[in-house]
């Protein structure tokens, strides 16, 4: 206690102003332990202090929304008495330092967020972003991250059903590892992380507490990387947690059984900021106080001091609020699952402050009757972190970037260009158990994943749920607002390919350093773009995560808002058409053919242009009314097939990265049957990317065209399926075998290069 407080608060990541605010809250100088509690709880990662102001602009409500943002997971009513919980998070910085454990503990953390709501986790998805694979470090990161997800997810027993894989220079120093989890529960079992009932007990379940992950949220997640190899960044390795999927598996089963038996009043996972976060958040939500006996916490090693115990991010721990009468029964269930259960807290009366208001205090004690080591209002930790309206400024350099449109790029070899855009992510997803629980109708590697809505303990239903994660940092770098809106439209189109209607959005906003005005501008614009698109489609945003300080050596990543969309399908008894067309089928392009704006077939932000090193240009708007009609039409066509109705439609694929040319080539690769496509109007149409267009194969062109016309949906005939080649007018002529082999081998070839 001899250190001057000024230096301690800065070492804990608190500014001088924040220190003064803490003094004002307490009416006195905080002691070291109290300061440490504020240090983690007021970190960017825990408090969203730079983004909260802007996140309020997102639409969050809807008739079917049971739980919106701010809880451990968002929850919707999916019908038939089943609620679906969904959450997305980032584990970027831990994965950059220790890829296996970083990615593994990311999976563990997201599962706890979902079963905290009483839901059994049913599936995980992982959007991943790395630098180019020509760099050996990136190959090491990819191997480590994928092994971590596989090693943890497979053993914990939750299928990984999809994700995204993006390689771009901008992630070289700061890869992104996002993880989404969806779970389901009988609607009436919904539980919230609330402490209630004075005299009730806070029971810590699961692993013992160790020195791993101390300061994870403040040291690691709320600061950038220096970018110098071996410098400060390596010293952060002890802030990465270590995961144990076997412990988590038993913890999941024990918690779900406790919830089933009705023993638990409230439950909260211990993730970022560990015990201090779980105790202060549950107490704050319940408006009560909590006494925590720091000596009661089972410890992994001797000599841990109170601040280490309170802020450790040791994995596989939960905090349950129970009545004293149920303690024995809780212990019995936990014993059966070999899960440790220890009373570490008591729910106590709130204090009454000078103005007569109830203030729930979090008191850390040395023994329940022992010395009070720290005493702070729980709400001040959980909800009252400072709120910043940081300076935002559109970078003036952007104009030159927008003016550098790639439409003047020489055409070159279209065959080679097309082949270079094809990557089958099979090497990644074959390492994931994608089938557990017998729900996976469409697994990884397609437009969207489609699951039966079934699981142990759920009411019987023939409904399905669909999931898609999407992002487009190339678009968002040019125009974060429009780019984010287009990303939402793209994701809704993906769900349509499996017949599902979008019901809710979660987001993971990965951005650079919020102290850079250009980054704050990107973040604010992206949130507005998301709000624009979600409002236009009537979609609520029911949860999210903001990951800032994604920078290395002072250079920020491209803005990377990742969206996760959850869709529902009313009746799922047959698989959707997929990408397998038959020889003789007619090929059509359904939806808006031309974008609105200066360019009908924009190439700015396209994968084709990026491969050519052209990162400039403008995005084009799309006509939302036509997009809505198109999506509704496609949903209807596919949902009918899933409900078991006969149809002339044999294949459906959304046009996205790589444009029409890549979409056709992907279908050729999967189906092993070629196609003859007439000359397109414009070379740019081959590779232009904007959402709302679908490639459809049909066995009865006239019938299909009649239905499209009746729905007021534009459609154009492209050609015919068949043969051993993909021919697109005079521009593309490739053999089916070349396309399939190149696509299949692309990722493995890149990963094995030079390593």
């Amino acid at each position, binding site marked *: 206690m001899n250190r001057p407080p000024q230096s301690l608060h800065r070492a804990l990541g608190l500014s001088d102003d924040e220190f003064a605010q803490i003094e004002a809250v307490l009416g006195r100088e905080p002691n070291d332990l109290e300061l440490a509690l504020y240090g983690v709880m007021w970190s960017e990662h825990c408090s969203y202090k730079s983004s909260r102001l802007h996140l309020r602009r997102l639409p969050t409500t809807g008739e079917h929304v049971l739980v919106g943002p701010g809880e451990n997971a968002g929850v919707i009513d999916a019908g038939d008495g089943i609620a679906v919980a969904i959450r997305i998070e980032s584990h970027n910085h831990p994965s950059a330092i220790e890829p296996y454990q970083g990615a593994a503990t990311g999976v563990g953390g997201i599962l706890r967020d979902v079963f905290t709501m009483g839901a059994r986790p049913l599936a995980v998805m992982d959007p991943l972003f790395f630098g180019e694979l020509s760099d050996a470090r990136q190959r090491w990161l990819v191997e480590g991250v994928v092994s971590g997800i*596989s*090693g943890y997810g*497979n*053993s*914990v*027993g939750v299928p990984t059903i999809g994700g995204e894989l993006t390689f771009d220079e901008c992630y070289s120093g700061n890869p992104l590892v996002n993880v989404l989890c969806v779970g389901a529960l009988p609607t009436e079992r919904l539980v919230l992380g609330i402490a209630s009932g004075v005299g009730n007990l806070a029971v810590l379940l699961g692993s013992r507490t160790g020195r791993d992950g101390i300061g994870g949220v403040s040291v690691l997640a709320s600061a950038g990387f220096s970018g110098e190899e071996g410098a400060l960044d390596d010293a952060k390795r002890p802030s990465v947690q270590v995961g*144990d*999927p*076997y412990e988590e*598996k*038993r913890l999941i089963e024990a918690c779900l059984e406790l919830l089933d038996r009705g023993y638990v009043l409230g439950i909260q996972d211990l993730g970022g900021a560990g015990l201090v976060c779980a105790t202060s958040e549950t107490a704050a939500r319940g408006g009560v106080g909590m006494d925590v006996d720091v000596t009661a916490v089972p410890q992994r090693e001797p000599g841990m001091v109170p601040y280490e115990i309170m802020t450790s991010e040791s994995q596989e721990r939960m905090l349950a609020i129970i009545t004293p009468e149920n303690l024995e029964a809780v212990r019995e269930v936990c014993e*059966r*699952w*070999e899960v440790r259960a220890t009373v570490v807290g008591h729910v106590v009366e709130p204090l009454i402050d000078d103005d007569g208001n109830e203030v729930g205090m979090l008191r850390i004690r040395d023994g329940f009757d022992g010395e009070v080591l720290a005493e702070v209002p729980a709400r001040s930790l959980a909800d009252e972190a400072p709120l910043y309206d940081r300076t935002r400024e559109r970078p003036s350099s952007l104009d030159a970037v927008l003016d550098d449109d790639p439409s003047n790029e020489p055409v070159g070899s279209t065959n080679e260009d097309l082949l270079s855009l094809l990557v089958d992510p099979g090497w990644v*997803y*074959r*390492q*994931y*158990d*994608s*089938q*557990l*629980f*017998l729900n*996976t*109708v469409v697994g990884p590697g397609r437009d969207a994943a489609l699951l*039966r809505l079934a*699981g*142990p303990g759920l009411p019987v239903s023939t409904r399905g749920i669909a999931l898609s994660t999407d992002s487009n940092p190339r678009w968002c770098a040019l125009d974060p607002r429009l780019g984010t809106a287009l990303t939402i439209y793209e994701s809704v189109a993906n769900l349509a390919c499996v017949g599902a209607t979008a019901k809710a959005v979660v987001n993971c906003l990965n951005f650079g350093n919020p102290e850079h005005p250009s980054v704050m501008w990107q973040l604010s614009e992206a949130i507005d773009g998301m709000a624009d698109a979600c409002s236009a489609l009537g979609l609520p945003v029911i949860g999210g995560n903001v990951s800032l300080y994604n920078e290395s050596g002072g250079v920020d990543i491209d803005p990377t808002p990742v969206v996760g969309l959850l869709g529902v399908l009313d009746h*799922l*008894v*047959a*698989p959707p058409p997929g990408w397998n067309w038959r020889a003789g089928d007619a090929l059509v392009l359904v939806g808006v053919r031309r974008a609105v704006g200066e360019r009908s077939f924009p190439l700015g932000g396209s994968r084709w242009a990026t491969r050519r090193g052209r990162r400039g240009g403008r995005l084009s708007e799309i006509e939302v009314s036509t997009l809505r009609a198109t999506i509704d039409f496609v949903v209807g066509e596919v949902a009918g097939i899933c409900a078991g109705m006969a149809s002339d439609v044999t294949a459906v694929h959304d046009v996205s990265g790589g444009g029409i040319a890549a979409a056709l080539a992907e279908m050729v690769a999967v189906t092993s049957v070629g196609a003859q496509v007439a000359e397109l109007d414009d070379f740019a149409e081959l590779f232009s990317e904007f959402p709302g267009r679908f490639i459809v194969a049909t066995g009865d062109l006239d019938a299909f065209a009649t239905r499209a016309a009746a729905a007021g949906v534009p459609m154009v005939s492209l050609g015919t399926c068949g043969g051993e080649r993909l021919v697109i007018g005079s521009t593309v002529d490739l053999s089916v075998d070349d396309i399939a082999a190149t696509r299949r081998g692309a990722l493995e070839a890149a990963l094995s290069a030079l390593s």
Partner: protein
Amino acid sequence: MTRIAVVVFPGSNCEYDALTGVESLGADAELVWHSTKDLSGFDGVILPGGFAHGDYLRPGALARFSPVMDAVARFAEDGGAVLGICNGFQVLTEAGLLPGALQKNAGLKFLCQPTTLTVTSTDSILTANATLGQELVIPINHFSGAYVCDDETLARLEGSGQIILRYVENPNGSRGNIAGLANERGNVVGLMPHPERAMSTLLGSADGRVLLESFVAPRVRA
């Protein structure tokens, strides 16, 4: 009605899938905890997939010491039908109820993918209803699925028709392309592929049905 016990070890994760699989064929199935010492009253026992006891040390190495395994051994001895799927196959080899062992895949990567199998013997409780040479598409989902055994054992297995399923294209380096095998009496079987994941065309394949139908079929004990 055939009564099937599905054993749950801490760390098992395919228990509900196995349960659902045999229930969909009309069997009466129930989950039994690994501390169970009595399997009387059951007609068949399934050791499901997953990571029993976290697969610590190596897959199946700890599970063989679970109390239920003595009961499984007696049950097998009495001629009861015992089926080990994936991790369950690993447990059966560790427990000495099936010969050989399963080691890490040749590619040193976890593999979840469909495989095509050939039925190479119908002298087992799992393949009795299948036809010799029948091809079945059934997914695998494992890190340690490469079957190994010594030359003598392999010759014995080959000679006695104990190799019941082989991969058409070997995904994991298994000796003799072995995907599944039976003991000499044919009442204890283990396989790495997951027949319970191939019960419906909605999920990609219904080829696992013929195997589980064999398993749950009423029979006189061998």
